[in-house]
């Protein structure tokens, strides 16, 4: 069970009571404004208490919130989108949505991971876990973007690359490795947005970028907390403990110089104002692309190299 959804229950009740009182007040001559104010104050207090300072595990749950905007929601908010399908070899991986698009009038290549909203869609999108053919579609789209000189925009949201038999048979490791390589070399500006879960190599495969931004309550981690707990202690149930140690929040990663920018979320999380959050992210992407567009390509690639070269280098 999602711990944020659990904590929201009390708030949702309170919200409904306030709304009911307000509609009652509108129909009755009795002054209820005092009661309503009191309830609203209580609501704000609980909201601050619940969301003001969230633990790492709460952030993980926020990043997995069932109502959180997904990759497709960002793609749908672009001015225009023409989806391109398939890896040309095996099949079209629906965990990855990508194609030509326009953002604030600018032509781009967009690539998003999408977990799916309801059960049917989750199955269709393999819960946002790309298979090798998904990464090979990504590689194809990166090559095409470079060929046409289109900047790349990626939206990252995956618990990790698909760990199934078929994925191993078709060399998942090779697909991710080659995707990393294409992003390293791509002679176009790249902006990556971590919008939900950035899970391990399966996320990084879309996130070698000139500007890496992250939503305030997104997480980005060397392995999912469950995966890390299983690797370290042979017990996936200790995920909360692992989350607390992995330093996977946006503040941690800004401090380490692993991300470049945090996009704030409304109090209570991105889903409290999904359209507003999506617009804010797209504004940030637009601003980043405007800046990167002014940089000569050779300089851009030198800077890209230097940015990642510093991580974990001796002081």
């Amino acid at each position, binding site marked *: 069970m999602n711990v944020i959804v659990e904590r929201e229950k009390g708030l949702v009740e309170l919200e409904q009571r306030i709304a009911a009182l307000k509609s009652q007040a509108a129909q009755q001559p009795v002054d209820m404004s005092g009661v309503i104010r009191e309830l609203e104050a209580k609501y704000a207090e609980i909201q601050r208490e619940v969301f003001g300072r969230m633990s790492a595990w709460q952030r993980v749950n926020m990043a997995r919130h069932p109502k959180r905007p997904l990759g497709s929601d960002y793609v749908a908010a672009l001015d225009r989108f023409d989806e391109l399908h398939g890896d040309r070899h095996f099949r079209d991986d629906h965990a990855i949505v990508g194609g030509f698009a326009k953002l604030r009038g600018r032509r781009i290549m967009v690539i998003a991971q999408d977990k799916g909203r309801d059960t049917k869609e989750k199955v269709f999108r393999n819960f946002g876990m790309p298979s090798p053919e998904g990464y090979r579609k990504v590689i194809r789209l990166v090559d095409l973007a470079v060929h046409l000189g289109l900047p790349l925009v990626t939206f990252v949201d995956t618990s990790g*690359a698909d*760990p*199934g*038999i078929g*994925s*191993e*048979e*078709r*060399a*998942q*490791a*090779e697909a*991710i*490795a*080659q995707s*990393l*390589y294409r992003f*390293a*070399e791509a002679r176009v500006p790249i902006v990556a947005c971590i919008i939900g879960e950035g899970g*391990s*190599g399966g996320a*990084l*495969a879309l996130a*070698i970028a000139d500007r890496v931004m992250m939503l305030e309550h997104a997480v*980005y*981690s*060397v*392995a999912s907390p469950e*995966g*890390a707990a*299983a*690797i*370290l*202690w042979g017990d*996936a149930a200790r995920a909360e403990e*692992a989350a607390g*140690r*992995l*330093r*996977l929040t946006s503040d*941690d*990663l800004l401090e*380490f110089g*692993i991300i470049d920018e945090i996009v704030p979320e409304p109090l209570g999380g991105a889903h409290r104002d999904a359209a507003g959050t999506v617009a804010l992210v797209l504004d940030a992407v637009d601003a980043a692309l405007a800046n990167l567009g002014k940089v000569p390509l050779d300089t851009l690639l030198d800077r*890209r*190299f230097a940015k*990642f*070269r510093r*991580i*974990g*280098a*001796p002081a």
Partner: protein
Amino acid sequence: MRRADPTSGEDAAQWTKCPKCGEMIYRPDLATNLWVCPRCEHHFRMHAFDRISMLVDSDFTEIGGDLVPGDPLGWTDKTPYPQKLERDREKSKLTEGVVCGFGSIGGFPVALGVMDFNFRGGTMGTVVGERITQLFERARERHVPCIVFTASGGARMEEGMLALMQMAKTTLALARFRDEGGYFITVLTDPTTGGVSASFGFQADVIVAEAHAAIGFAGRRVIEQTIRQKLPDNFQTAEFLLEKGALDMVVARKDVKDVLVRLLDYGAAGRTPTNGQSALPSTLVPPPVQSTV
């Protein structure tokens, strides 16, 4: 000539049991046989320096050996991370999970990196990433080919995202090396999984795997837990991946050096084996008259 009974006395430490066929093997024999079981050909995991001595002609100069990790996350579980590192240093006689340096193989000067599973499961943290990056950078400066032997469980959890980002860092450094004509060969040894297979492991111009090595992205246990069924024995083996088209060749340990010399020769069009002296830029040297193999 008759050796001591394996089960008795002080010589017991000199004997080791093959984990695959159960054969008791006299350790000096095992070393002579390149840590391959004489009965079933099980390839034991090798110490990095044993591997290096098996490969290089005589010369080897290590680089980055003094780089050791800090504790960027302040990690403690049962044991604080610095203590785990200390324990592994004692156990493995290594300073980190990879040994990098320069030497020559069959007369061809090379940049050589050898990972060692004995140190934190060969996991890639900041120092492994940094040493590999420096290896690519120095190989680029010296215009020599680069060979990396992988053996790794993936990214190192105790260094968190800083560990994961080494996949990005090494990739960027490798791209720069290859863009200038750098020739990169990997030899995937048992086991190679996770962040190492999903970065430089599978980014090489030629990918060789040692016989019977376990190679993959997700760990076997993770897959079994996910699909809730047992996997076939040959799943994620070098031989399995060769059949699936993911590798160029699978080679028995005794043949690895010869194969590498042949591969280095193909990459040396325009370069000459120089017996450890630095190679000149390819444009300045005529092709070798005679192959070394």
